């Protein structure tokens, strides 16, 4: 028992370490082949981050974490929600619009705006869910389409409601009132910038994800559906409703992605609001094996690479997009390593069961033989 657990723990730590090493090796080879400064690249990528950069890494990870959790909810049920990107765009826009009106005071405004974001994101996801459940449209396609449609619709609405600031070429929704802006926490000593207050949101979401999926009936049903839809149906899970629920939950969580950015940094939704987080979330969820803690590590790693890559051009003269190559290789290497260790694990487990059973059987036969 403990033996097997230990083995599993070792294997699941070995896999990512191996993957990081492979990524390091392959990237170095690429750099070397093209005559780029391998040493400078790694000095830049692996240099100890300054306090300011640590803050950035954590902040980046918060947002990526939310995105990956949103994706993971779908994955747990074998739903491939590529639409997180569109869902958080719709959610962020709606929340910014609402919070900007300042109908409610301070923190209440934030809380309700967060709910608004979840509702909007969930609504956008529900279109894909409805099409899947009622019309059999694969969520892969419908969410791709809905991402593009979200872009158009949000742009259109943004132009309708946008406020222009004098002298600025950017447009955005009305800035949220100061009383509802979150200044952030000075958690990293020596850093001038602050950690998003909504780190709290990521923590809560992570805990909820762990609790709901692992400890509740609903979570059990959801996981059961993910690991065998047919068995889930036979056990009384209403799969269609489950698809609806989890897709909408995924969308609602996606709605949260923009919240730390909105309340902690941008204070309005506009043309410079960060896009593309949904796709990063897919990679991170896969890297973290859909596990709340694994995803946290994966998000930190991803954000670390993103942040460190920022200086690549300045310090090593290499295009910062090199980081995509590193991230992609890590992803490949990790999943290959996971797959390998998973197989090994299954094989070892089967052998063990067979061995112990054979021993049991032999014991029984001996007894019977003795009686006869």
């Amino acid at each position: 028992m403990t033996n097997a657990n230990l083995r599993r723990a070792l294997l699941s730590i070995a896999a990512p370490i191996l993957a990081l090493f492979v990524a390091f090796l392959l990237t170095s080879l690429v750099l070397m082949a093209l005559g780029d400064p391998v040493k400078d690249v790694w000095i830049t990528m692996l240099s100890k981050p300054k306090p300011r950069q640590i803050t950035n890494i954590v902040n980046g990870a918060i947002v990526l974490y939310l995105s990956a959790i949103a994706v993971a909810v779908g994955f747990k049920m074998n739903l491939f929600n590529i639409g997180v990107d569109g869902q958080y765009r719709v959610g962020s826009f709606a929340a910014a619009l609402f919070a900007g009106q300042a109908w409610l005071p301070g923190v209440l405004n934030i809380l309700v705006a967060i709910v608004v974001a979840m509702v909007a994101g969930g609504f956008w996801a529900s279109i894909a869910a409805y099409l899947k459940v009622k019309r059999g449209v694969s969520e892969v396609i419908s969410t791709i389409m809905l991402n593009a449609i979200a872009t158009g619709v949000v742009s259109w609405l943004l132009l309708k409601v946008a406020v222009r600031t004098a002298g600025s070429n950017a447009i955005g929704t009305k800035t949220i009132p100061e009383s509802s802006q979150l200044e952030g926490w000075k958690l990293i000593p020596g850093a001038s910038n602050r950690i998003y207050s909504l780190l709290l949101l990521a923590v809560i979401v992570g805990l909820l994800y762990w609790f709901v999926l692992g400890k509740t009936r609903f979570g059990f049903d959801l996981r059961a559906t993910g690991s065998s839809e047919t068995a889930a149906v036979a056990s009384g899970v209403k799969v269609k409703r489950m698809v609806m629920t989890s897709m909408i939950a995924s969308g609602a969580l996606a709605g949260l992605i923009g919240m730390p950015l909105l309340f902690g940094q941008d204070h309005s939704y506009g043309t410079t609001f960060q896009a593309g987080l949904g796709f990063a979330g897919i990679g991170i969820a896969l890297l973290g094996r859909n596990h709340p803690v694994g995803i946290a590590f994966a998000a930190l790693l991803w954000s670390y690479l993103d942040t460190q890559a920022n200086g690549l051009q300045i310090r090593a003269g290499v295009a910062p997009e090199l980081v995509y190559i590193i991230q992609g290789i890590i992803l490949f290497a990790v999943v290959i390593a996971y797959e390998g260790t998973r197989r090994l694990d299954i094989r070892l487990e089967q052998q063990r069961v067979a061995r112990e059973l054979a021993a049991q059987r032999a014991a029984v036969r001996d007894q019977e033989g003795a009686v006869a």
Partner: protein
Amino acid sequence: MSTVVTRTPTPGTAPARGSFLANPWARWGMIILGAIILMSALRVITGANDLDSSGAIAAAFGLAVPIALAGLGGLWCERAGVVNIGLEGMMILGTWSSAFCAYHWGPWIGILGGALGGLVGGLIHAIATVYFGVDHIVSGVALNIIGLGVAKYLASRFFTGLPGGGPTQSPPLEYAPSLSLPGIGDPLLTLERKHIFFVSDLAAIVRGLTTNVSVLTLITLGLFIATWYVLWRTAFGLRLRSVGESPAAAESLGVNVYKYKFLAVLASGSLAGLGGAFLTLVASNLFRDGQTGGRGYIGLAAMIFGNWRPGGLLAGSALFGYTDAIRLRAGGQSVHAVLLLVAVLLLLIGLWQLFRRGRVVQGVLALVVAGLTAWWYFAADTVPNELAGTLPYVTTLLVLAFAAQRLRMPAADGLVYRKGEGH
């Protein structure tokens, strides 16, 4: 002798019924004819002349071909049971390598180079999914990330400093050659400009299809025919498809499952790469960062839309390319005209649902949406640009919503297969 009672007649194979329409060529012919008549009616009613102008048709082609090529890549892959969400990444690799090759050795080598670049992507996907048994979607996602990074990195490495090039774009390239059917372009244009019901429309379409057609477009058409032939008429294709339907059965008959999956994914990569080459050598004459703009994903959608068949895929990409073309060309005006079409179609669907199928909710819903669309059509005289841009996506989604239930993917699509596990 058969005492087994579960035999049901094969749907669609009854040769007695409607002998004319049973012929697929005739059926497609009728569908196309119907579509032309519908479009010309719409054009005449709404006055949106660009709806089926020769330019719109040609532009639709230009926008459809890369999608079709990506989709064809997806088709090869998925027919062999490997899901390929990495088409976008392979396409991106194709754009860079075709530009690189075309810059150094001219457009023909550029075309080849595009295919090669995609092939490299296919190779990675094949090794990961077929050999290592990695989940197909994970591998595809990783490939998209890598493709993006590699192209950008290589571009800044190899195009910076070249005249007219930079880290995000290649120097200008020579266009791939294009062909016209001589002597008919101008008379057809005259006919088209007269705006006569049906006649002008037909002239426009013929002109769009015969004037200034890129060789790569012709190659693409050839590849579609070749794909159909190879996959459905040769032993190689039979084996490839069997691997996507039931790898265990194929293996039990001595088919090397890995080999066929591997080859299919490689073919898939080169086709997607060719789609990238089309973007750099036909649709424009340079490589630009971000040039693919999600066309790989759209290709995948078009393939599913086309029920994993070349004909259907072609129809899907044409629909997408066409809607994209008309909204790019005449902006809100053509899209506005399409509103009327949508309203009428929804009206028909709603009535059909209500009276023939007895589905009250769906029927009423369709009618309500039809009413709203019609109201929009009459209340405004154009569609805002931001919304017009969503036309291709909305159309695809709508069509899928009405047709998706009849789609059937290869039975073992997306399942990881290990040698000897199926027995």
